[in-house]
């Protein structure tokens, strides 16, 4: 069945994610991603580490386990301001164990697309954000801009890479590989308006069931004008390494102040230079020919 050229996206419901990583595997298989060499972290079920050029889905584990002395340790996920860990809200017995299949958010106001100087990053007919591999020259400005740390640099291709929301599959009427593989339907693919309706219902059901901290991230326009890949979270966004609405800012916010600061400094610098050299001309002291 063909997929219509209108906004599509992912609704990732973290409340039913079981951390099986089927999405990661399906993504790598379909997109022929080799993956990074395996690493043994020894303190977490998260051995993928981060989203990057090889990991276009990353099942993030936010773990907090009680220590014998009554304190609690986190695995360091949920790094907030200046790298300090954001402590998740403990549930049963001082523990927290949250899972979230993270991915490119296909932001409505995409920081990566905003800065890309080559126009390699485009919005597709499905309203998703795509890096055209034949255009990208590997300048990495998009990596600097993406507020979610989604994009990675592929040393072999010399280009920036991230989730394409399986653009090739969409064009051929197939849903993205991760959504197809997810056994619990934590990752749902569909037209954005349908997904949003389903998410609203799910949130209402959870809150009715007493999960008062459950919230939708990116469902409305408060972060980056809305996210085509949005989430149902069981704790505040920072716990999952997601900037909250207050901190979700576009890179272009610094254009005007940055250039203005430069212009004022330029004027001050020119005045400083002129003051130093003008005096000699005024006094006519030096008469060495040019």
């Amino acid at each position, binding site marked *: 069945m063909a997929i219509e050229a209108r906004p599509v996206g992912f609704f990732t419901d973290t409340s039913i994610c079981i951390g099986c990583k089927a999405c990661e595997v399906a993504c790598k298989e379909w997109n022929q991603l080799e993956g990074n060499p395996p690493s043994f972290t020894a303190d977490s079920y998260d051995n993928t580490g981060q989203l990057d050029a090889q990991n276009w889905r990353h099942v993030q584990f936010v773990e907090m386990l009680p220590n014998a002395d009554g304190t609690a340790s986190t695995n360091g996920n949920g790094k907030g*301001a200046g790298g300090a860990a954001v402590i998740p809200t403990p549930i049963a017995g001082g523990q927290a164990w949250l899972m979230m299949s993270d991915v490119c958010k296909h932001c409505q106001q995409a*920081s990566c697309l905003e800065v890309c*100087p080559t*126009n390699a990053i485009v919005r597709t007919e499905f309203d998703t954000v795509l890096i055209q591999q034949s255009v990208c020259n590997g300048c990495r400005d998009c990596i*600097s801009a993406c507020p979610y740390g989604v994009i990675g640099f592929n040393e072999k291709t010399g280009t920036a890479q991230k989730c394409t929301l399986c653009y090739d599959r969409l064009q051929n009427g197939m849903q993205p590989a991760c959504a197809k593989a997810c056994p619990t339907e934590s990752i749902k693919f569909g037209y954005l308006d349908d997904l949003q309706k389903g998410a609203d219902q799910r949130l209402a059901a959870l809150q009715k069931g007493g999960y008062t901290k459950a919230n939708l991230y990116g469902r409305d326009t408060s972060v980056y004008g809305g996210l085509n890949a949005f989430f149902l979270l069981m704790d505040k966004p920072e716990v999952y390494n997601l900037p909250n609405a207050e901190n979700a800012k576009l890179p272009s916010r610094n254009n005007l102040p940055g*250039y203005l600061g430069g212009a004022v400094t330029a004027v001050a*610098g020119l005045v400083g*230079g002129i003051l130093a050299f003008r005096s000699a001309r005024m006094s006519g002291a030096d008469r060495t*020919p040019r």
Partner: protein
Amino acid sequence: MPPSEHFAAPPNWEWWILGYFVLGGISGGSYAIATIIRIFGAPADQRISRLGYIVSFIALIPCPIFLTLDLGQPLRFWHMLVDTSEGALAFKYWSPMSLGAWALVIYGLFSFVSFLGALAEGGTRALSPFAGFVRGTLGSIWGAIGTFFGLFIASYTGVLLAVSNQAVWSDAGWVLGGLFLASGLTGSAALLLALLRWREVEAGTAVRLEMADRNFAILEAILVVLFVVSVGIAGTIGKVLGIWIVLWILVILGLLAPFAVSRSDAARRWPPVAAPVLSLLGLLALRALIIFGPQS
């Protein structure tokens, strides 16, 4: 105010970019100093003006090379200017990298012509038509426009860092452009002072260049303070402390050097190039700690 949060990944801009930021600052700064002297300076000072234009172009030559080598696909460097998917020019005024690529091309032309003019004035006969051009009113206008682009090249690199979601860079968004520009001017004045040691100039010329150097250093010092305050308020200053304190020491020494020479008897006994070299090291250290610190 709660501290800012950043979850962005580092772009791994490293040595090539550092090299470009340093040389871009020196090129733009030298061009501006050369033009100031050309338009406002005394006849005796015109030697430094010529030297400034020459330094500016020589410093500029490696810049596009460094930028190209930093790309993952160096042969696609021209994608910065041509949108290959649309077959049109790639120009995004809201992307400092796009704007910078165009500014570099335009500034390259200005710097090159001024360089030829400086060589011509220095006696290179084959280039003599350029000597007339750079001397007249047209030359002053050319220099003024070139200065605009030169100062842009010295400054936009700071804006390029700021227009991101990286800790420190985006937190000091309004300061970095000015800071890089001011430090480019300080470093350029220092470099020209160092080079003057090998040229015969009026004593007054060096004095005036030293005065300009001090004025630029005051401006830079103000911006350094504003930078520290900005990242302090944002709660991300830790990213440029720790081991980076070594580089901060160089920045401070570089800022003090022009004043030490004019105020302290001990410093006056330093080898003549000591103060300029310290200033140049300060320029390098400032950019290094701002580029590498937040990415580490």
